[in-house]
């Protein structure tokens, strides 16, 4: 499944290649390789362009339209009464936060997807984002902690969630006999996913209960933490998220590349010298941190991490790519935020409500499709 188009097209010249590496066959394979690479590059560039376009639309259009010259004037430091405030405090932060958080969710989803080899085991299904949200809400409600402290709590919450899920599924598997026990066996197995879903629903219940009990009339705050919303983003949060991402994204890229053999499956990957257990654990940690950092900024935006990876793979022709997944996530969040803010008359829906409603049918479709392939 890692590169279906590559394999299916490669099947055509295979008979000649079997006789011996004829120059024509070598050339054919080489051109296929470069074609796949070119497709990846094209897809990534297209996604980047789409992101720029989506952000432009988010900032310039909508109920309050800003002209392009005005926008650049404002960016240049000029003050236009009314427009300056709306652009700098409302439209631009939402666009930037959406892009950053979406990219973090997308990268986390790609890492989880590659480590766990299961399109449904993404951080928002197995409780990482919900755990981060619970931790953030807890320190906010009981300690009044904001800013860095809240982000740190969210990171810890995400890590704790994944640790619980891993702990229970590993214990469950280790009794399953030789060969499949231990860390590598626990990753991505059925027990792992069910434990993750259980943790996710636990966190969700704690969140909604806490929301009902603690803030009777503060629906806006409730929406941020139960569904995920960009209503509460501030430049402070954006800078914090950006700093965390600058540290984590290089690691994510490195781990994603190192885990490439994992796409071959456990035993083959082992054969080519990859240690999926250790590297996989690190990649889960980095992925969980990325998802938790994004959650600290925007709340648990449902299904963004789940959907960006398969979408990106569709666009790149089946090649797994971390940048493409991150860009996909960013585009999804920016568009969903625009639609949530503008498409429902005067009411602003939380962004996560929109991604959740749109994502559920797609997840069902993914489930059917993965059943077909497994």
């Amino acid at each position, binding site marked *: *499944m*890692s590169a279906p188009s590559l394999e299916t097209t490669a099947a055509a010249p295979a008979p000649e290649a079997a006789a011996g590496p004829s120059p024509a066959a070598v050339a054919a394979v080489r051109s296929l390789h470069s074609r796949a690479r070119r497709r990846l590059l094209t897809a990534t560039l297209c996604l980047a362009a789409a992101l720029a376009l989506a952000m432009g639309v988010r900032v310039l259009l909508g109920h309050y339209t800003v002209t392009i010259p005005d926008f650049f004037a404002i960016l240049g430091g000029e003050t236009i009464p009314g427009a300056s405030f709306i652009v700098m405090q409302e439209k631009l932060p939402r666009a930037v936060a959406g892009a950053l958080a979406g990219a973090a969710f997308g990268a986390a989803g790609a890492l989880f997807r590659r480590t766990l*080899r*299961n*399109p*449904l085991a993404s951080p928002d*299904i197995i409780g990482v984002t919900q755990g981060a949200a619970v931790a953030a809400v807890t320190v906010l409600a009981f300690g009044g902690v904001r800013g860095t402290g809240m982000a740190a709590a969210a990171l810890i919450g995400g890590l704790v969630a994944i640790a619980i899920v891993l702990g*229970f*599924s590993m214990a*469950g598997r280790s*009794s*399953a006999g*030789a*060969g*499949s026990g231990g860390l590598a*066996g626990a990753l*991505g*197995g*059925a*027990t792992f*996913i*069910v*434990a993750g*879903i*259980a943790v*996710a*629903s*636990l966190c969700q*219940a*704690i969140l*909604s*209960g806490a929301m*009902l*009990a603690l803030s009777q009339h503060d*629906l806006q705050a409730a929406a941020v933490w*139960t*569904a995920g919303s960009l209503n509460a983003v501030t430049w402070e949060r954006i800078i914090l998220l950006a700093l965390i991402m600058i540290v984590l994204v290089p690691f994510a890229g490195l781990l994603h590349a190192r885990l490439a053999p994992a*796409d071959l*499956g*456990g*035993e*083959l990957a082992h054969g080519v010298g990859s240690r999926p257990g250790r590297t996989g654990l690190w990649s889960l940690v980095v992925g969980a941190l990325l998802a938790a950092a994004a959650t600290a900024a925007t709340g648990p935006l*449902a*299904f963004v991490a789940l959907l960006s990876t398969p979408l990106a793979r569709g666009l790149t022709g089946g090649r797994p790519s971390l940048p493409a997944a991150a860009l996909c996530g960013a585009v999804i969040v920016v568009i969903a935020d625009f639609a949530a803010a503008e498409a429902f008359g005067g*009411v602003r829906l*939380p962004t996560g*409500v*929109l991604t*959740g*409603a749109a994502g*559920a049918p797609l*997840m*069902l479709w993914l*489930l*059917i499709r*993965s*059943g*077909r*392939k*497994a």
Partner: protein
Amino acid sequence: MRPSLQRPSTEHPPPGTSTPGPPERRSAPPARRRPVTASPVLALPFLALPALVLVFACLAALAFGARHVDPGTTLEALGAFLTGRGDAAAADIDAAAALSRIPRTITAVLVGAALAVSGVALQGATRNPLGDAGLLGLTAGASLAVALGLGIGISAGLAGVMVLAILGTLVAAAVVYTVASAASRLGGGTGGTPGPLSLVLAGAAVTAGCTAVTSALLILSPAVLERFRFWTVGSVARSSLEDAAWLAPVIAVGILMVFVAAPGLDALALGDELAHGLGSHPERLRMVLLGATVLLTAAATALAGPVVFVGLLVPHALRRFRPASTRVLVLGCALWGAVLLVLADLAGRLVVAPQEIHVGVTTVVIGVPVLLLLLRRKAVSL
């Protein structure tokens, strides 16, 4: 005698694995069975104990809360209520406090019994140890349908809510079952029955989608929000006696359906072909069980909103005690389910005293650790 705990080891590789090599060895360990000689617990004490506990739990639920009422006053108030002199007794403020807790206690009893029995039925019908109306997305579907109906403005009374809840449950069940069986038939080739993993995943997706749309409706329409706010989290705090009286017969019918079909559960647990061979009709049985599940889930959701994990917890806990027959198991589940929900509601009221934690939250907080333990002990084979 332990239906659906150990499914015959049909292997479901995790979806999406593109392992080209030999399939991973994921065989279940030899089942940790109790010695066969252990005699099943006799039926009478098996049912008398929870009945007794339920009586005390209900009395405690009436007496304790934000305002504690002494036992004597509680009993007096209850007596006055039962003899129809409740209004007169309400003059005393302690008695009034106890009386005000009667509707929610009755509702908790009904909802707990309904959900626990629906869990037995669902686990038997789908041969899936993780059968729970909440986990499989049925309650979320019912909630969404009711919210939609309120949003359009078509539901007047409780009858409307009930019809909507049944419709929502049916649609959610159909979607989950279709998707899950498509995913599992195409994958494992085990015939029509979907595996627990695909059912749970489909249920999670349906829950997430329905919850998102429900909260969108709540935000878009303040009128719905007013009536529906507590419905996003299961709660018995606002229940009324009229609602409970109206839905009690529905729940009774649902439990009766499962009770009548119960002996077939053992046959069903052996698989369709064996069940056929034993002279039962698996399809008909499954229809009855699923119908009962829909009725019970819809009634419970109409009364209290989404309450999850009761259907998972109670049957699994009771099976450990080897009930004498499946019928005894069903009745025991009804009683212990009621106890669980009454106590969960009481605990939610006591822990953060003037405030309260809704029962929908409490059951999840109790249920998830139990589910994790079940997974850890491989009591649930996936």
